[in-house]
């Protein structure tokens, strides 16, 4: 920072990136070695694939034909969509998570410059997720005879700029249409939907019940081979740009930078006004009508409080919505197979439902237990910790039960026994994930929900392994191999025993975490 001119755009950008980096790394200090190892393994794996591609592509040129054009276009569309999901959520946060915005606005810097840099920070954050793997994947090919492929990096930069521009425009449009109070919620839900769009697209056969056996890629390949694929005009632009052709590359960069500059620079003033307008925007109209009777006892009061807080958490709702979307194709496949196929054909779907139930329960228990806003208040109360934990576990399991109602009911309608085992397996998986969340709790903040797994590597790994084992047991039970289902069940039980902590051990771990 010191080598950069204070208050300049690079200086401000360095400040933004430093904050973003520290935000991404917060809560990972204890698991820093584990995180470094995970990143290292992923990096080496991608690099290995990159070397293989580089060796395989030596002496070959990418043909510019309908198939390669379609693949390049589709890849860019997926990347743009995922980037947009990130930048839309980031743009909404930039309005609300004020942090240093008040400080910056009260300084002699122009608001437009501040927000331009914030937008640039968003673009860089979105870019890095794709640029780093792309560098590892393509550098061997670039070194082994395809220097023009370095243009892919420029295409990614253009995509990040365009996605940021569109993200800002969408955030501002939401702000104008539905006001400051609802913008953050809707933006986060929209970001989740956009992020899941291609997953749902790839599942179109499951969603519409098409019997065709080939995948989307195989279908495109077949269409190209049989001459049915006719790319529209300019559809070859991404491929030509990625291969280093100057004009297409220039066009993509101009479009990306144009969208970014248009929204970040020209909307700067409006964005500043909108950010200022969010001050106090959380004040809601008071509820009317006769007040509800108070809940009796600590269990009910805690359960009611947790359900209220979950229902009012936009980030959490969008994450749960994502999982519902992931469950949708699975549920439809299950429903269709349940009507026509034997029980063993349902095993994979049942395992998937059980695994997702565990994942949702794991997320929710983190919110209710680890992200408790006022742990001191609970510690002060004469209520036993076990009562509070029971209430929090119940609160985490209620939404899971609601999610499971439809797939289990459909399954039970056609094949009651398969429905019963799916319900039992999913319930057990959700409960197990909840108990691991209670035993291995580590204080965190609701805002860190998306990074929660970084705070306790062991708990996250344990949760995934146990939910997978219980998913496998569910599958075996649904298939009718009950004796075999005992095997993963016993292993999961043994793992649960290893992860279990008594109330005293949990309290000691929390005290140790507080001192650290």
């Amino acid at each position, binding site marked *: 920072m010191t080598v950069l001119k204070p208050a300049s755009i690079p200086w401000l950008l360095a400040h933004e990136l430093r904050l973003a980096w520290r935000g991404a790394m917060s809560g990972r200090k204890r698991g820093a070695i584990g995180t470094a190892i995970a990143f290292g393994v992923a990096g080496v794996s991608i690099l290995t694939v990159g070397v293989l591609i580089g060796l395989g592509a030596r002496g070959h040129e990418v043909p510019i034909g309908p198939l390669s054009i379609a693949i390049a276009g589709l890849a860019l569309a997926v990347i743009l969509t995922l980037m947009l999901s990130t930048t839309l959520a980031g743009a909404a946060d930039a309005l609300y998570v004020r942090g240093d915005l008040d400080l910056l606005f009260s300084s002699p810097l122009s608001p437009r410059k501040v927000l331009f840099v914030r937008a640039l920070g968003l673009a860089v954050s979105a870019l890095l997720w794709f640029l780093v793997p792309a560098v590892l994947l393509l550098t061997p090919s670039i070194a082994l005879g395809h220097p023009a492929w370095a243009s892919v990096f420029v295409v990614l930069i253009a995509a990040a700029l365009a996605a940021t521009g569109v993200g800002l425009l969408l955030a501002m449009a939401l702000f104008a249409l539905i006001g400051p109070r609802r913008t953050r919620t809707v933006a986060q839900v929209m970001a989740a939907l956009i992020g899941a769009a291609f997953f749902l697209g790839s599942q179109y056969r499951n969603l519409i019940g098409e019997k065709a056996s080939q995948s989307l890629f195989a279908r495109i390949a077949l269409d190209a081979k049989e001459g049915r694929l006719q790319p529209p005009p300019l559809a070859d632009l991404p491929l030509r740009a990625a291969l280093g052709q100057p004009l297409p590359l220039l066009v993509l960069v101009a479009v990306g930078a144009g969208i970014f500059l248009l929204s970040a620079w020209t909307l700067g003033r409006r964005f500043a006004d909108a950010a200022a307008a969010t001050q106090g925007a959380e004040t*809601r109209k008071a509820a009317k009508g006769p007040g509800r009777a108070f809940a009796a006892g600590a269990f009910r009061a805690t359960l009611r409080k947790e359900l*209220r807080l979950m229902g009012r958490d936009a980030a959490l709702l969008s994450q749960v919505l994502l999982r519902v979307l992931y469950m949708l194709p699975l549920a439809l496949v299950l429903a269709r197979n349940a009507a026509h196929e034997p029980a063993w054909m349902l095993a994979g779907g049942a395992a998937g439902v059980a695994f997702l139930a565990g994942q949702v329960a794991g997320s929710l228990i983190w919110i209710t237990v680890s992200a408790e806003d006022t742990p001191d208040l609970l510690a*002060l109360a004469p209520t036993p910790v076990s009562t509070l934990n029971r209430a929090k576990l119940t609160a985490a399991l209620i939404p899971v039960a609601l999610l499971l109602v439809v797939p289990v009911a459909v399954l039970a309608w056609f094949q009651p026994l398969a429905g019963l085992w799916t319900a039992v397996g999913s319930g057990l998986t959700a409960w197990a994930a909840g108990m691991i969340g209670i035993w291995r709790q580590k204080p965190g903040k609701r805002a860190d929900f998306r990074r929660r797994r970084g705070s306790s590597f062991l708990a996250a790994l344990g949760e995934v392994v146990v939910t997978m084992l219980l998913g496998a047991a569910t599958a075996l039970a649904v298939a009718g191999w009950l004796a075999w289902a005992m095997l993963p069940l016993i292993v999961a039980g043994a793992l649960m025993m290893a992860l279990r902590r008594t109330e005293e051990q949990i309290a000691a771990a929390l005290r140790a975490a507080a001192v650290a």
Partner: protein
Amino acid sequence: MTEALIVRGLSKTFAKPAVSDIDLTVRAGELYALLGPNGAGKTTTLRMVAGLTQPDKGEVSIFGVDARKDPAAAKALLAWAPDEAMIYDKLTPLEYLEFVAGLWNIDPTTAKARAETLLATLGLTDEARRRCEGFSRGMKQKVALAGALIHEPKLLILDEPLTGLDAAAARLVKDMLQARVDAGGTVILTTHILEVAERMADRIGIIAGGRLLAEGTLEELRGKAGEAVGGASGGGTLEEVFLRLTAEPA
């Protein structure tokens, strides 16, 4: 007069000793002010009394209940309100009070009536069903105070209760605390506003470096401050007494 709080030999060390061998007695029905410079050990002492921090050694008795042997019974008798309000931004004041009353197992009908009365007294009736996220710091402090009072604790412990309150709200809180003491309740508070302690406290404890330097009425403290500088008991405001007692030896 019975003792509301007896503390004996209370000690806590984090990286360095925070509280060392503190003995403290607070009588039932009095307002006791615990004063000390920043980092003196006031909050750590009170957190140990409230059961929020585990002492390394020492005893805490609340109205005769051993807080270390029977923490649930001790907690049922007290309330703790720190300077950072322990509230939920996404709950309304009424919902918050419902939750706190549930934690202390108060009958729901009684709790609701008390909640409405408390919010009215604190001037929060119009905000009772609005989420706390848009509230000012002072309003949040008032909600937290209502939470501390909803189960009518016999011992109320407040850490810097006037932080962030405007003059009118501060006056309101002071009046509420005084009314509570007049009605036989016991209040322990820490404050940096020495004038408040001087005017309101029945007795004052002065803590520095994790040790209780002096304890007593203002008059008794004046005497101790006089002895500390080698002179006879003199007059002086609490501020002068405080500075004399907490002054580092030259």
